[in-house]
């Protein structure tokens, strides 16, 4: 498990595992992004979030994002770990690590990857509020949509 770059797990996430999956002597720069569950949303108090995933497709989707990254940034190493099930306030739902010889690339890949995860990973948030639960529905996942890739690249500042 220590060095698995792409994971979907119901266990609590540990940034050190994502970092270990990308670390190496050639990497002068490592960027780790952690997304955590917040305690409020548009004025509603959030109690917790359940994340549902189509796990085998999600892992394949992370691998695909890895392929996209390798094509554009061949020397950057990437890890994406996403949690499923009940995630409490303050706990991490996603951890992304990128390692590179160059800090610009480590930042760009980390940002690109979180944008792509949000666009195309088959994962769904079920927010539990005080007065019930809400399914959050964002983007229709289409891995081949060039417009979405361009949006992710733009947000990655490349």
């Amino acid at each position, binding site marked *: 498990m220590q060095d698995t770059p792409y994971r979907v797990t119901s266990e609590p996430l540990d940034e050190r595992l994502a970092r270990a999956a990308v670390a190496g002597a050639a990497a002068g720069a490592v960027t780790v992004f*952690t*997304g*955590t*569950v*917040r305690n*409020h*949303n*548009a004025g509603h108090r*959030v109690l917790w*979030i359940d*994340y*549902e*995933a*189509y796990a*085998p*497709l*999600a892992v*394949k*989707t992370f691998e695909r994002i890895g392929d996209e990254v390798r094509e554009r940034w061949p020397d950057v190493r990437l890890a994406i770990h*996403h949690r499923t099930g009940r995630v409490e306030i303050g706990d991490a*739902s*996603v951890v992304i690590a990128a390692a590179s010889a160059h800090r610009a690339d480590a930042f760009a890949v980390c940002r690109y990857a*979180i944008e792509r*995860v*949000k*666009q*195309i*990973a*088959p*994962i*769904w*948030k*079920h*927010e539990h509020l005080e007065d*019930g*639960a*809400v*399914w*959050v*529905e*964002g*983007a*229709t*996942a*289409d*891995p*081949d949509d060039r417009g979405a890739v361009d949006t992710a690249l733009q947000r990655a500042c490349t």
Partner: protein
Amino acid sequence: MHVSIRLFARLRELAGADEIEQTLPAPATAQDAWDALARERPALAPYARTISCAVNETYARLTTPLKDGDVVAFLPPVSGGCGIRDAGCGIRDEGSGMRD
């Protein structure tokens, strides 16, 4: 032909099942499988224009031809990643929540 349909998140709740065996006249595409599904479960119909589709655990177009025994997944719009739809991680561009 027989295919196995997988449903997730709100689609799963609306259908009341996460796995449905569906018989389709051959030849059939993923779109045909959806149409048959939504005919039998009209609550799913509003998702016709926003679903994604995977065949045998790989993203696929709705025009993909199916084979007997295929596993076809229909996915509502996704919301993985971090935090909360309109604030956590700056998710400003996501759609609104869907009440159960």
